[in-house]
């Protein structure tokens, strides 16, 4: 729920500084968190260039932030040790954007019950609520899945939960730290009046008959058809996996009905890039020939918008058959364009064709590699399950492997291993500042609704092991012998990662496992440039010409000098040990002696005035008492006469 008050809002593009104190891994994680804001909201971030207010991200003690824009100039937000998780960064920045925790909503007691005697002594105030005069829930229901919700064990004094959800299904849902929930985004976008985002371009699951504005080409031999199932496969779409009767569609190119070399072309609507780099992702099912292929083109329009050029970007061949495959295609388009999907009949027998579904296009970086784990449920049901990925190469040439540990009772672990590779002789050892980002993909058809789980680690070339070796040294030097499934021997370094990647319960939720498939997205990139200081803005200095123009309009007296400050000419006046000139044109003189004289005479004047007031008061009071005394004496005399 948000803090009420327009003054607490940041501009849509928030200036930031990543301070030198931050760990290098944290810097990379923070930049990844910014990308999530750019994809799903209208909030953007830019390096500070001198704006009045900005967020300074520091490595303080712990993870914390202020709520809202406090207009203090440099506003700190701390990502300390162990806070370098993407959802933690997203959480703290949501505070900065003006959000309190979800369970502090005014209506929270309708949805959760706080167990007060299980809360640590002195921490009860952390469970206060805000009235609806102070906080606004933006007309959105209570959100158990919010990234801003406490977990059930928050501030517990023992082992029992401090927060119990009134709907028991959400008992272990609260406290998720994977990504923004749908309602988090709804509230943020309402608070900041977002109508679009910087990075999102298009998403299509083919559920509507207009097929997202995609058009069939006329220069091909066949058409793509919108269908819900194909006898030779797939028997359902990828979006719904056949769970919704009467819905669930995808596009299919029937290669069995055309000759070898025949094509079917499907083009997207016209798209307008903002950032100049894009990631296209989609699912493909092959039920045709082994040599059927899917070609991806870009039709880019020139400035006059009449002519276009068609460029082949990717040929997808040898598509495995039998289940949906996920593909990523990197694009670098700067002018308005269409994405073109061309299905091409290959040689060999075909009983079906190519199907595509769940297309997403965004101006983000594609992952470098995808680890597709088939028949995943057999692994989570078997004890002591440990999975190793195929070997991959990073963009710098380092060979690596990912290790997924499913053997623990509650949590799933994930680790990054350097392994011996073909380029090792040419590489720098120990491996310096390569950040490995491992993402468990939430396979929601719409990229904006995915709550993927992500962790990052960075290789530190100075890190040593107990026996004095460098942790990230060459695998042939410090690694252990291991075998690939085909029996090939290689060296594997010690793994570096976390035993708490995700809980088994969350892994089975949402669409992490879809069609018995799991996808782990991998990116390993050089972040050594983040070791250097972020360039600080230089205050803008007026040019010589502009100084002369402004100073020609003012004449300083008594040897005063004209200077320009904040685009305004002003006189800097002469001053000595006990004297000075002042005034707009240095026309007045002041001195310490004058100050003493003024102070002394003021004191004397006040004293004299108070003395006069005192004397007058005494005189008047005396007079009053004299009158009273004489009237009392007469009364006594009269009384005496009366008695006698």
């Amino acid at each position, binding site marked *: 729920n948000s803090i009420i008050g327009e003054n607490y809002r940041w501009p849509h593009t928030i200036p930031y500084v990543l301070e030198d104190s931050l760990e290098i891994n944290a810097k990379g994680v923070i930049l990844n968190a910014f990308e999530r804001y750019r994809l799903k909201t209208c909030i953007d971030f830019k390096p500070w260039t001198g704006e009045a207010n900005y967020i300074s991200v520091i490595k303080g003690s*712990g993870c914390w932030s202020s709520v809202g824009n*406090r207009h203090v100039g440099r506003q700190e937000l701390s990502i300390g040790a162990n806070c370098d998780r993407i959802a*933690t960064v997203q959480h703290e920045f949501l505070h900065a954007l003006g959000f309190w925790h979800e369970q502090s909503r005014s209506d929270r007691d309708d949805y959760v019950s706080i167990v007060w005697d299980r809360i640590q002594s002195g921490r009860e105030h952390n469970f206060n609520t805000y009235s609806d005069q102070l906080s606004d829930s933006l007309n959105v229901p209570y959100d158990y899945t919010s990234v801003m919700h406490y977990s059930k064990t928050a501030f517990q004094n023992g082992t029992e939960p401090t927060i119990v959800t009134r709907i028991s299904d959400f008992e272990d849902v609260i406290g998720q730290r994977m990504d923004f929930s749908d309602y988090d985004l709804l509230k943020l976008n309402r608070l900041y009046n977002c109508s679009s985002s910087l990075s999102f371009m298009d998403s299509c699951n083919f559920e509507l008959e207009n097929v997202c504005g995609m058009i069939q080409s006329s220069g091909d031999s066949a058409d793509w058809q919108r269908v819900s199932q194909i006898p030779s496969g797939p028997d359902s779409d990828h979006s719904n996996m056949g769970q919704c009767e009467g819905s669930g569609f995808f596009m299919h190119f029937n290669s069995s009905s055309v000759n070898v070399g025949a094509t079917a072309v499907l083009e997207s609507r016209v798209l307008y890039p903002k950032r100049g780099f894009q990631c296209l992702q989609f699912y493909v099912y092959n039920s045709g020939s082994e040599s059927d292929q899917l070609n991806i083109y870009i039709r880019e329009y020139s400035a006059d918008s009449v002519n276009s050029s068609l460029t082949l970007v990717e040929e997808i061949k040898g598509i495995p058959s039998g289940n949906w495959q996920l593909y990523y295609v990197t694009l670098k388009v700067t002018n308005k364009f269409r994405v073109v999907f061309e299905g091409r009949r290959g040689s060999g027998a075909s009983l079906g064709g190519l199907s595509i579904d769940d297309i997403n296009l965004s101006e983000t970086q594609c992952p470098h590699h995808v680890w597709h784990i088939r028949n995943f449920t057999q692994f989570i049901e078997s004890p002591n399950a440990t999975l190793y990925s195929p070997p991959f190469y990073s963009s710098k040439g380092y060979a690596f492997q990912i290790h997924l540990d499913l053997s623990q009772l509650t949590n799933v672990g994930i*680790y990054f291993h350097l392994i011996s590779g073909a380029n090792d002789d040419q590489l720098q050892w120990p491996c310096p500042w390569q950040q490995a980002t491992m993402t468990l993909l939430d396979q929601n058809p719409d990229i904006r609704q995915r709550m993927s789980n992500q962790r990052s*680690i960075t290789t530190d070339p100075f890190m040593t092991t107990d026996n004095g070796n460098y942790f990230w040294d060459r695998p042939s030097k410090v690694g252990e012998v291991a075998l690939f499934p085909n029996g090939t021997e290689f060296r594997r370094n010690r793994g*570096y990662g*976390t035993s708490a990647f995700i809980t088994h319960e969350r892994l089975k939720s949402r669409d992490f496992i879809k069609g018995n498939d799991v996808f782990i997205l991998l990116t390993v990139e050089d972040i050594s440039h983040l070791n250097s200081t972020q360039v600080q803005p230089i205050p803008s200095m007026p040019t010589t010409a502009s100084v002369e123009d402004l100073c020609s309009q003012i004449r300083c007296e008594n040897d005063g000098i004209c200077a320009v400050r904040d685009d305004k000419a002003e006189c800097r006046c002469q001053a000595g040990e006990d004297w000075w000139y002042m005034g707009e044109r240095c026309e007045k003189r002041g001195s310490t002696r004058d100050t003493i004289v003024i102070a002394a005479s003021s004191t004397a004047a006040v004293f004299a005035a108070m003395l006069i007031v005192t004397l007058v008061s005494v005189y008047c009071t005396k007079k009053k008492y004299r009158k009273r005394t004489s009237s009392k004496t007469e009364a006594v005399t009269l009384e005496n006469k009366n008695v006698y």
Partner: protein
Amino acid sequence: TPDNFVKDIDGGIDRDIFDINEDLGLDLFEGDIRLDGVQVR
């Protein structure tokens, strides 16, 4: 490879933001909110 051939950066414990701050002895408002002077007063 040996079972313990990994370095676990979380030390076997899944700690949330508030656990991290509590372990550091911080007593921030609602666990992770820093108040400015006006709010404290």
